[in-house]
């Protein structure tokens, strides 16, 4: 467990010899630090890169499917884990971006890299939506439980609205919103290429694209949370009143974190929609909205690595459980959440790190 030492939490004084970006990527706001962590990190990436050579097509596609969700989880870790604002809005922005991708690509097709425009517009719409909702929330001084209630209501209203769009009058151009059945028929991500466009159906190329995006996103967020901005987010989480009295306009910081985190939910939304060529209100409803909370809480919301690992593990468990029936799976997920919240409120991974840290200390104390 040397790579996740509790003592590392205290490491603080920046090492003058380190270049700035390295200091940020390896900073105190992330649990996994130090040479051993980065060796394991490199090995994991290596394993992920060679994985498609050893796995069957279905498993590769399924792993790519899992990757689609992780952006939303990392976004929630930023909003809730780092900045301390519990948002149930992730699936609303996921859906908003997914539908936007559908509308753009169904109307304009996949040629000339237009699916990439669809991705950008989808993510842009979710950022815009988050900016509007976030402004009302944070500048209206809504916090704590009420933040959860308002974001959840917004999500459910949006899901309910989309569910009643079955009639043919509910269409944007050629894109039928489709009510409960959702929107289908959008093209997959397509990369313009000299010898003919490459359509990324759920296969090996998509897997690699998502893997690369995930690594970039993860590392980028590490830099963000260890930067000045990240320091202020953590300060707001720990003691918002004190943060304001140190001269920070905390509403602005909360809003920016909310927009970035919700934009990542939007990224998940477009990737999921492009992956399955399908988006529906059930991706946003109550059960769906609760899932990101569970992934993030179980792994450890206050840490990006814990969120990343926790989300992939919980997704895997959840998928295996749904073989026995989806309600059954939800019940188990709910139980898992309750157990973690009661016994390891920081999440499983930080809980284990603390446990081993104490264990090590005791051993050192004895010798």
């Amino acid at each position, binding site marked *: 467990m040397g790579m996740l030492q509790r003592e590392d*939490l205290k490491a*603080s004084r920046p090492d003058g010899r380190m270049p700035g970006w390295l200091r940020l990527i390896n900073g105190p706001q992330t649990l996994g630090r130090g040479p051993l962590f980065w060796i394991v990190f490199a090995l994991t990436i290596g394993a992920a890169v060679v994985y498609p050579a050893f796995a069957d097509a279905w498993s590769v596609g399924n792993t790519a499917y899992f990757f689609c969700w992780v952006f939303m989880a990392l976004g929630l870790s930023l909003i809730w884990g780092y900045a301390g604002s519990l948002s149930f809005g992730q699936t609303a922005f996921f859906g908003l971006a997914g539908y936007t991708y559908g509308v753009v690509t169904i109307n304009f097709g996949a040629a000339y890299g237009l699916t990439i425009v669809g991705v950008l517009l989808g993510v842009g719409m979710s950022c815009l939506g988050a900016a509007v909702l976030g402004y009302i929330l944070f500048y209206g001084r809504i916090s704590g439980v009420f933040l959860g209630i308002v974001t959840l209501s917004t999500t459910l209203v949006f899901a309910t609205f989309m569910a009643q769009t079955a009639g043919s009058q509910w269409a944007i151009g050629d894109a039928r919103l489709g009510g409960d059945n959702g929107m289908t028929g959008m093209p997959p991500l397509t990369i313009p290429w000299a010898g003919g466009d490459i359509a990324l159906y759920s296969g090996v190329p998509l897997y690699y694209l998502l893997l690369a995006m995930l690594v970039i996103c993860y590392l980028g967020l590490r830099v963000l949370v260890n930067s*000045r901005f990240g320091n202020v987010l953590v300060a707001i989480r720990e003691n918002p009143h004190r943060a*304001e009295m140190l*001269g920070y*306009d*905390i509403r602005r910081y909360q809003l920016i974190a909310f927009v970035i985190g919700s934009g990542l939910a939007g990224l998940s939304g477009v990737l999921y929609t492009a992956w399955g060529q399908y988006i529906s209100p059930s991706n946003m409803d109550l059960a769906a909205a609760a899932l990101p909370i569970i992934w993030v809480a179980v792994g450890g919301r206050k840490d990006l690595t814990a969120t990343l690992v926790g989300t992939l593990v919980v997704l895997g468990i959840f998928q295996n459980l749904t073989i026995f029936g989806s309600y059954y799976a939800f019940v188990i997920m709910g139980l898992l959440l309750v157990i973690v919240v009661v016994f390891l409120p920081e999440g499983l991974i930080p809980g284990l790190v603390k446990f081993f840290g104490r264990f090590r200390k005791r051993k050192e104390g004895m010798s």
Partner: protein
Amino acid sequence: MTILRTEKLYKHFDGVKVAQDVNFSMEHGEIRCLIGPNGAGKSTFFKLVLGEHQPSSGEIYFSDQKITKLRSFERVKQGIAVKFQVPGIFSELSVWQNMQIAVQNHLHGDSMTSAIDKALAFVRLTDKAGELAGELSHGEQQWLEIGMAVSTEPRLLLLDEPTAGMTPEETARTGEMIQELNRKGMSILAVEHDMEFVRQIAHKVTVLNFGEIFAEGTINEIEANEEVARIYLGTADDDE
């Protein structure tokens, strides 16, 4: 020139008056102590100055500039820093990170690092830079908060019961710190119960009672004032 001045300041909470016609003023470079029985409205006065509460009526001036309508963080940026009565450190973060959050709003890079080093040395916490703030002793936590407040070199420092829970040695050391800051030109307004400490640091003393300025003067004048002794003794009896 005054560093802090209030004009006909009133504040009531659901009919309970906690500031009544407060016309307070203190000079640049002054150390002022604010005393008064429990519930007199001392902390509330700080919160009004900082914009945590909006006054029911009246105006607040900082360095002759009206700040009544400014938001808290804007007032802080103008050069007011505070140590609250209730400890306000980030206990899950290291001492160094606490300092960094206090300083990074004003300074960058090497000048930030040296400002932190200076402030930590000043409050004698250099050796504890790597420790979690929540694991410091009570007195050290108070000092960390003072360190955070002074690291940005504010023009006005508000201290709400800075020596509460400190040992006599720690209290004496805190008094020296305050005088050292003052010698460098910082104006300081402190709420204190410990009269010996007030005698050590105060240039002037303001007595607050039921949200009103009850008396004002040098420590000798205040201690000789029988009315002040009466309101104080009254509550001292209640406390026992």
